[in-house]
């Protein structure tokens, strides 16, 4: 009985701590967005943002290209085999394109960003916290949110959108290669089929719902991964062990939240706003 209550106590304590962390992350995200769009020193803020954007894109570009290509190839292979049973191979391009644009592109990009950029941010800020660098900034009247957090979170939002576009393109190309090699569908026909399926219904200029719902998803994922990574890093304590804990916490929370929020956004776009 004592063990049960002890376990229950630990669970409740963990839940409380998790809620507090979620609250801190949400406040940090809101604070960063406000300060990012209304900076006190716009030129310096822009430079920090561009530095971060460049570094984040460089860190994840190669992984994104490889994973995107193979994701499209796997999708085409699995779906193509099923479609062949019904003699409906001509639908392959539309299914691969829609799957990549709506779900796989944003999700894969988010997972890669959480594991590469998010982990790096949590480790960097965690190390700065335990080595008193963040205290030093505060004592110099330099706001850590403006100086460190805001450029990282906003750049991660933009990186996620740009990389999702790249993953979508690479994924469709990878799918096209498999479609030609395995199912005899000419690459040009596959790409035309993908383009046609992503052309309607058009909302927001020339973007179809498949595309813009996926891009909104990746923007939200990017901002959340950035906020979770920064919050975990800023709250790190206890030396190297604490930094490791912050990185793990950041990656685990990012993957779980990406799935939950991904479902909610899908529901909003494809059920609520049908």
């Amino acid at each position, binding site marked *: 009985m004592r063990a049960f209550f002890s376990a229950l106590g630990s669970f409740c304590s963990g839940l409380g701590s998790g809620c507090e962390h979620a609250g801190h992350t949400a406040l940090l995200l809101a604070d960063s967005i406000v300060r990012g769009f209304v900076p006190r020193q716009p030129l310096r803020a822009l430079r920090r943002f561009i530095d971060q954007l460049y570094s984040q894109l460089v860190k994840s570009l190669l992984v994104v290209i490889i994973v995107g290509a193979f994701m499209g190839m796997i999708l085409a292979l699995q779906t193509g085999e099923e479609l062949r049973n019904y003699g409906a191979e001509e639908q392959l391009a539309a299914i691969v394109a829609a799957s990549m644009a709506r779900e796989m592109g944003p999700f894969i990009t988010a997972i890669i960003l959480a594991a590469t950029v998010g982990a790096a941010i949590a480790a960097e800020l965690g190390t700065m916290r335990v*080595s008193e660098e963040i*205290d030093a*900034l505060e*004592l*110099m*009247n330099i706001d850590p949110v403006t100086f460190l957090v805001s450029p990282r979170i906003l750049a991660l939002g933009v990186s996620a959108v740009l990389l999702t576009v790249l993953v979508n393109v690479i994924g469709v190309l990878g799918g096209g290669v498999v479609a030609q090699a395995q199912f005899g569908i000419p690459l040009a026909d596959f790409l035309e089929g993908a383009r046609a399926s992503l052309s309607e219904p058009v909302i927001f200029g020339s973007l179809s719902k498949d595309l813009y719902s996926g891009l909104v998803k990746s923007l939200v994922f990017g901002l959340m991964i950035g906020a979770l990574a920064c919050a975990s890093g800023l709250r790190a304590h206890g030396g190297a062990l604490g930094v490791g804990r912050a990185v793990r916490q950041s990656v685990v929370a990012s993957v779980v939240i990406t799935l939950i929020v991904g479902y909610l956004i899908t529901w909003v776009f494809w059920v609520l706003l049908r």
Partner: protein
Amino acid sequence: MSDANVPKGTDDVLVRLTGVSKRFGEKVVLDGLDLAIPRGANVVIMGLSGTGKSVTLKCMCGMLNPDAGTVSVDGVQVNGASRKDLRRVRSKMGFVFQGAALINWLSARENVALPLREQGLKAREVDEIVDQRLDEVGLSDIGDKFPGELSGGMRKRVGFARAVATGPDLVLYDEPTTGLDPMTTRTIDELIVAGRDRYGATGVVVSHDVKSALRVADRIALLYEGRVAAFLTPDEFVASDHPVIRSFLDLDPADDGSGRRAP
């Protein structure tokens, strides 16, 4: 506040701690501490490990809030201060961290320039001051190096240059000589004295290095059981029969590093 911890004949107090208490969980670290730091003096806070030296320093700059008591710097109460007041107090304050706490992805120059840029100085003024400060700490040729490329002593010197870059009224030093060799320790001690003599800054140094304390201090405050047990000049400190002071001095009684010989 107790008059015992204010030097006689000194009315101009820059930092005043009155009845400061601080506990972490069950552990009482500070227990009604009273201390007054005279303007323009170097005061070294000494004590055994875990007696609250660094906690006292962190209360002075508002990084920690005491559970009871007040901390004021230049007449402004730091604990419970508004953000604006805290910014104003900190703009006249420099802090030298034990591990230097330089921003790792900025060069030594950029680190020293950070607080100056924050004060809105023009690029040319910032460059002039940075050159001057790096020259004064003997590091004019390493400005473009990053903290990871510098030795521990060099990092401390860059940390000192950054702390005094804006010409602060008060510089707080957290264990500035810990882990350094005797030669580098002496260099850092000279910089702490220069902080007072050249820049006119009041210094508060947390240390357990007796030799270093005797070299730089105008006054030495001994923390014991959460309070200031003694507030003495270096000569009085060496002559004191307080058991904790004796235990400090008796570790190396023949050489106190100041030319004075401990009895």
